[in-house]
C-alpha cells in the first residue's frame, strides 16, 4: 500500500501506477483523498481540459481515439477520463468506452481511465474532477473527459472543462432535439460526426438555426466542425478549433473562468464539508432522528427544522 506522500511523489513524476492508485483513492477514500488533492493542487492548472459530450451513438469514443492519435503526432501527452453511468438498481457499471481506444493503451504518454458515475446525480462523478486534477498534476498536456450522453446532466461538465465540445451525428433518432437546451448554451465547439452521411448537412443547419435563436452577446461564436471519426477526417481541423478556443480563453476569459470555477468548487466543498461534518454529528448525537420524527408527524416542516438545527450548531 502506497502512502499519500508516495502517491503524490509518483503522480508528480507522471508514474502510471501512482496515477492509477491516486484516482482510486479519490474515488473511494475521502480523508486521504483530500490530503492527496491538497498536495497536488499547486501543480494543477497547466493542462487544457476538454469536455466531450453528446448522445449515445454519436461516436464519441471513436472520435477521441482519433483526437488522441493526432495530438500524439503533435507531441502532446494525454489523459482521458471516460465516464459511464452506474446502474441505479444494482450499483454496478459496465465501462466499455475504452474498447474503441485500446490501440492507445500501450502508448506510454497516454493514460486512459474509466469511471462510473456512482450515482452522482450530476452525471459526472465528483471523483472525475479530482481525477482530472491528478492527470493535470501528472503533467498531461491535454485531458479529455468523455461523459454519458444523457442530456441535462452534461451541464455539470462546465465545472471541469475549459473547452466543451458537444457532439452529434445524423440519424440518431430525434435529431437536434437530442441536444438538450442546456448543452446548446455550454458548447464551445459543435462537432457533427458521420459527416459523410446524407443528412449531415441538415444536422449542421439545425444547429446553426438553434444558435441563431440565442441572442446573447457572444465573445466566442461556437464553430461547427464536420468529422468522420471512423476515418479521422476533420480531426486536424477540430484540434485547430480547440487550440483557437484555448488561445481565446487565455486572452479573454481565463481569469474570469478560473474565478468562476474556483468559486463553484469552493461552494461545493463547503457544502460537502457541512454535509459531512454537521449531518454526521447530528446523526451521531441522535438529534437527526428526533427531528425526522417531528417532520413525519407534521409537527414541523423541513426548512424550519433545518434552520433550528443549524442555529443550534452555530451557537
Amino acid at each position, binding site marked *: 500500500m502506497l502512502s499519500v506522500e508516495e502517491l503524490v511523489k509518483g503522480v508528480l513524476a507522471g508514474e502510471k501506477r501512482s496515477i492509477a492508485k491516486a484516482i482510486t483513492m479519490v474515488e473511494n477514500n475521502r480523508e486521504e483523498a483530500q490530503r492527496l488533492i491538497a498536495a497536488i493542487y499547486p501543480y494543477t492548472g497547466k493542462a487544457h481540459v476538454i469536455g466531450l459530450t453528446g448522445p449515445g451513438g454519436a461516436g464519441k469514443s*471513436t472520435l477521441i481515439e482519433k483526437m488522441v492519435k493526432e495530438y500524439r503526432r503533435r507531441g502532446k501527452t494525454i489523459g482521458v477520463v471516460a465516464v459511464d453511468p452506474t446502474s441505479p438498481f444494482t450499483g454496478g457499471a459496465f465501462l466499455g468506452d475504452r*474498447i474503441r481506444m485500446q490501440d492507445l493503451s500501450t502508448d506510454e504518454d497516454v493514460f486512459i481511465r474509466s469511471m462510473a458515475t456512482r450515482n452522482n446525480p450530476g452525471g459526472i462523478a465528483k471523483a472525475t474532477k479530482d481525477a482530472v486534477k491528478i492527470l493535470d498534476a501528472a503533467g498531461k498536456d491535454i485531458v479529455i473527459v468523455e461523459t454519458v450522453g444523457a442530456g441535462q446532466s452534461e451541464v455539470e461538465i462546465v465545472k471541469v472543462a475549459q473547452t466543451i465540445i458537444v457532439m452529434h451525428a445524423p440519424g440518431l433518432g430525434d435529431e437536434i432535439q437530442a441536444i438538450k437546451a442546456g448543452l446548446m448554451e455550454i458548447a464551445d465547439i459543435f462537432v457533427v460526426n458521420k459527416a459523410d452521411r446524407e443528412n449531415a448537412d441538415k444536422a449542421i443547419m439545425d444547429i446553426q438555426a438553434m444558435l441563431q435563436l440565442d441572442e446573447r452577446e457572444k465573445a466566442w461564436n461556437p464553430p461547427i466542425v464536420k468529422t468522420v471519426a*471512423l476515418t479521422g477526417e476533420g480531426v486536424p481541423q477540430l484540434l485547430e478549433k480547440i487550440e483557437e478556443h484555448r488561445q481565446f480563453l487565455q486572452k479573454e476569459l481565463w481569469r474570469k473562468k478560473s474565478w468562476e470555477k474556483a468559486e463553484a468548487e469552493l461552494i461545493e466543498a463547503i457544502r460537502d464539508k457541512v454535509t459531512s461534518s454537521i449531518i454526521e454529528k447530528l446523526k451521531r448525537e441522535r438529534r437527526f432522528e428526533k427531528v425526522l420524527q417531528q417532520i413525519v408527524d407534521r409537527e414541523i416542516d423541513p426548512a424550519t427544522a433545518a434552520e433550528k438545527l443549524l442555529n443550534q450548531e452555530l451557537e
Partner: protein
Amino acid sequence: MFDKQKIEEIAKERERWEKSTLLNWIKQCPERKKEFLNHSGFTIKGLYTPEDVKNLDYMRDLGFPGEYPFTRGLHATMYRGRLWTMRMFAGYGTAEDTNKRFKYLLSEGETGLSTAFDYPTIMGYDSDHPMARGEVGVCGVAISSLHDMEILFDGIPLDKVTTSMTINGPASVLLAMYIAVGDKQGVPREKLGGTTQNDNLKEFFAQKLCIFPPKPSLKLSVDVIEYCAKHLPKWNPISISGYHIREAGATAVQELAFTLYDGIAYVEETLKRGLKVDEFAPRLSFFFASHNDFFEEIAKFRAARRLWARIMKERFHAKNPRSMWMRMHVQTSGCTLTAQQPLNNIVRTTIQALAAVLGGTQSLHTNSFDEALCLPTEESVRVALRTQQIIAYESGVANTVDPLAGSYYVEALTNEMEEKAMEYIQKIDDMGGVIPAIEKGFFQKEIAESAYRYQKEIEEKKRILVGVNEYAIEGEECPIKLLRVDPSVEKKQVERLQKLKRERDNRKVKEVLEKLHYAAEKDENLMPTIIEAVKAYATLGEIMDVLRKVYGEYKELIII
C-alpha cells in the same frame, strides 16, 4: 385444408375434451411446467389440432417439392434421389496435417470437404505475425500463401470434390488460392465447385471476425459474388450464415430473421452493381444451426425455404425458380455441447442432425462429442460422420420427402416462425436496412439479451442441461483423450514463410501489391488482381495489409 364446418365441429369437441377428459387428467397428473416455451419464446400448446392449421392452403403454403414455395423441399425427390452432402468441418495444424484429415474423412465416406482455418488466417495475418503467436494451427489450418494451399489439396482432385471454406474477411484471397490450385491441376474454372462463407455482415454482430468497417466489408463480399456470377458458375460465392448468430445467443426466430435480412442486403448490393437478380441469385447459399428443440428447428428450416422463395419472388421479382431456392448447409449446434459427460453429446448431435434432415437440408456437418473440450480426434469425428450415415441408411427418414408435412404442430410452428421472422424483417426495414441496424446496435442488443436470458434460465433451472445443472457427476474426471496441436507447427510455418519470401520473385510481388492498392482505391472488383497476387506468391498477410491500409480497421460496438 379443412372445411369450415368440420373445423367448428372439431373446435366444439376440443372444448368438450378440455373441460372433461383433460381437466380430470390434470387433476391427477398436473403438467410439469406452468408453461412450455421453445427457444424462440413461442408458447407450445399441449395439443395441436386441425384448428391450428385451418387457414393452411396446401398449394399456396406447401406445394410440391421442387416447386414454389418449396416448403416441402427444393428438389422433387430430395433424398430418394440424392442424400444430403455429408460435409465435415475440418482443419488444424499445418496444411499437411489437414490434408491427411481430409483424406481420412473422404475415405470414411464424407461426400464434401469443409475447411477450418486458424485464427491468424481468418483475421488475415500470416503465421509469423506478432498477433499470431500461440495461435498458429491451433483451431484450424494455417494458410499463409498459395504454397500452403497447394499442400492442403495435394492429391485431391478439385474436379471431383466440392470444398467449402469458412473464411470471411479474406474470402477473396482464399478463393483466389483455390482457383490457382485448380489452374495448376488443370481443372477448368467452370468445373470448380464449392463455397466460400464470405458473409461479412454477420461478423459485425455474431462471429466478430470483422477486419474492415461495414461498407468495405460488404464490398469485398459482393466482389466475390459478382466475380463468381461471371466466371465460376459452379461456385457458391457466399454462405449467408445464421449459425454464428445462433451460437452468439440468438433464438431460432432471430437466427432466421437476421440471416434472411443479411440475404436481402447482399441481393440489394449485388443488384446495385448492375447484375440481374437471376444472374447471381441461384448460387446464393445459406448456413444454419440445428439446436436442441427438435420441432422448432424443423419448422425453422421449412419456414426459411418458404420465406426466401417469397422474398425472391415478391421483393426481388426473380423469374428463375433456382433464384428462389434456399440451399442450406446445417451444422449441429456447438454451444449445446457440454464439457461434462461428453459422450452425451453424441445423443444431442443425433437429435439435431435428425432435425436438419427432416428439415430438408442440402448439406450437413455433425459435431464431434469432444468439441466442448478441444478439436475432434479421428475417433470422435468418425462417430459424428457415422451419425449421419446411420440416419441416412438405417432410420428410414430419407425414404420419403418432407415426412412431417401435415403435422398440425409442425405446420402451425412453421407458420408462426414465418410470421415472427417477417415482423423482425419489417422492423429492420423500418430502421433503414442492415448497416443502420448494426450501427444502432440492434442485432447486438437482441442477441445479448437472448444470451443472457438463456444463461439465467439455466441457472434458475428453468432450462435443464443434462449433466450440467441436473444429473451432474460430482468431481467428474475427463475420461477421453484430447487432440492437442503440436506447438512446433508455429515454428514450421514461420520457417516455411521465410523460405518462401526468399525464393519468390519479390519484385513481382511488390508490383502486384501496388496494383492491388490502386485497384482498391479505385473501387474496382478486386478478384482478378488478388488472383494475380496469390499466383506471384504474395502472402495472405501482405495482401490483407494492402486492404487494411485502404479500408482501415474496425472496432466493434459492444452491447452486453
